[in-house]
């Protein structure tokens, strides 16, 4: 049992000519919050897709709890305890919020269609318990009493939170958040960051998130990796990253370092 929950070794993903992810090594500590940052098109989401099994990388391995995920299909990987959210929200929009969370719990439950038909004890118990769990998760992400509203008819921020609740449904050990605070106002952003922290502190869920909002990233991350043109150009603690010239260059272009210094001195 290593203390790294997920490790990527030299992972590369190539679309036609372009190499979206190029020999990326990551080591994510158990129960840590790990941020992946980088300019648009740096291959962050592609990396997520490689981890959660949408893509199989051309080269390299993704090790989860020390064992390779190669050849495992997406749902199995989800079953192993990796769940994720999406950059552009993808809920089951015609289902109610509670149903979304129940689908999230799918893998965890045992009941099959015959149970349902014969209304067995297992069916009744699982329905009851799963609904309880679902409601608690909804409350946890702050969607009190919205259980029976259709997902599509909810405000943007609420949909993001619902997506997280759905992801939590399967009691994940690792949670991949793709831009959780995108398009949120400062207030919502703050709530989201506290939420993420609580996830780690109260349930010991390891969190890997893609984020553009530097305040959020610097605020909550233990570890940060920076991708640029599919390559990892740096990783380390927020401090190291902030002072890493390559990163600043990647973000602000050549000669950005000086600006950054000025900026940090002001702060």
């Amino acid at each position, binding site marked *: 049992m290593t203390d790294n929950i997920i490790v990527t070794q030299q992972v590369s993903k190539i679309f036609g000519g372009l190499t979206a992810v190029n020999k990326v090594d990551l080591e994510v500590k158990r129960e840590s919050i790990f941020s992946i940052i980088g300019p648009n098109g740096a291959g962050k989401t592609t990396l997520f897709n490689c981890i959660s099994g949408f893509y199989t990388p051309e080269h390299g391995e993704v090790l989860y709890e020390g064992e390779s995920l190669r050849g495992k*299909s997406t749902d*199995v990987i989800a*079953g192993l305890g990796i769940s994720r959210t999406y950059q552009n929200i993808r809920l089951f929009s015609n289902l109610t919020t509670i149903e979304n969370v129940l689908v999230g719990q799918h893998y965890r439950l045992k009941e099959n269609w015959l149970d349902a038909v014969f209304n067995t004890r297992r069916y009744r118990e699982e329905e009851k318990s799963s609904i309880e769990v679902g409601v608690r998760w909804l409350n946890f992400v702050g969607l009190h009493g919205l259980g029976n509203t259709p997902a599509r008819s909810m405000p943007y921020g609420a949909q993001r939170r619902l997506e997280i609740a759905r992801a939590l449904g399967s009691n994940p050990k690792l949670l991949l958040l793709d831009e959780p605070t995108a398009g949120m106002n400062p207030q919502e952003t703050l709530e989201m960051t506290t939420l993420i922290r609580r996830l780690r502190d109260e349930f010991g869920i390891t969190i890997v998130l893609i984020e553009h909002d530097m305040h959020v990233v610097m605020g909550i991350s233990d570890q940060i990796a920076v991708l640029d043109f599919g390559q990892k150009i740096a990783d380390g603690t927020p401090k190291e990253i902030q002072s890493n010239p390559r990163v600043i260059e990647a973000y602000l272009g050549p000669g950005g370092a000086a600006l950054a210094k000025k900026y940090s001195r002001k702060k």
Partner: protein
Amino acid sequence: MTADTSSDLRRKSRQLIKLIRPLLGGIVGLFLVYRLYIVLIVEHPYGPDTWTRLLIAGLILGGVYSLVAIGYTLVYGILFMINFAHGEVMMIGAFSGYFVFEALNAIKIQDSNFLNTYAYFSVLIAFIVGMTVSALTGYFLEKIAYRPLRKAPRLVPLISAIGASIFLQNAVELLFSPQLRNYTNPTFLTRGAGWTININHSNVIIPYTGVFSFVLSAVLLIILYTIVRKTRLGRAMRAVALDKKTAALMGVDVDSTISKTFILSGALAGAAGVMWGIHNGLVYYYTGFIPGIKAFTAAVLGGIGNLPGAMLGGMFLGIVESMGPAALGIDFQLKDVLAFVILIVVLIFKPSGLLGESLAEEKV
């Protein structure tokens, strides 16, 4: 049972599924090859003359299929809906052509009649009228039955199309009676007549009507292709196909583009209908149904939404239907079975048709 054993089972079942697809495809493929070997090498029951005849029949059929299939593909490419009434549009075209010929045949000129004195001209008229009427049908079909359903769930327009198809069929039946009409061709297109070539001591006839319709369909397909690839309308169509909202923002009039698409596909169906009538010489209210289904199959076979795909699919289907049963030595009654089996096998290995969709929906 514990979770991991069950997940083991699931992995096994998944492997099974993974394995079964190529297995099934392989079996069918092997069978086809085996039959081919038996028939062509061992028995070889048919001489070259027969093969030529079969090929000719296949090409002609394929030409018509392609034309109709293009109609499906055009509409599908833009609206992602199966225009089920397309076959009926073709049938209406065939009927208009029939009426034109009847009318011209009735006009007396000295000892002959208009149809035969100005044969080429009358054929031209027939095609113009047929294509116009079909185009109009397509236009109004879209305006009445499909446009109100732009925003509706995907299956709703399909049902509307089915309703329209039933309606059109019965309307034509009630108007013109269920009688089977036979085309009166001008003499230079007499059915059955044609160039004769002698292949191992038996005359193989290449019918004029067949050559005519084949050439015509080829020409029309080329014209259409240039329209879609080169012209402004074509660009608009492709834009709408890719993304209606954006296209509209870019100043493309989506509605009119869609209407024009329907007009185009209708016109093609009309031409196909008239050709069908001239070559096979028989039209009635049910004429459109079978070619419609076949053409739809052809469109999917080639990769629906993909113009060259539709052409290829049409040709392929036509040839399979005419030569396939002979080549595999099975009953001609089973040609449709053969066609569909091949379709299934193709789709097993290339899930989006021979040439693939040109406008695939978003994947991951």
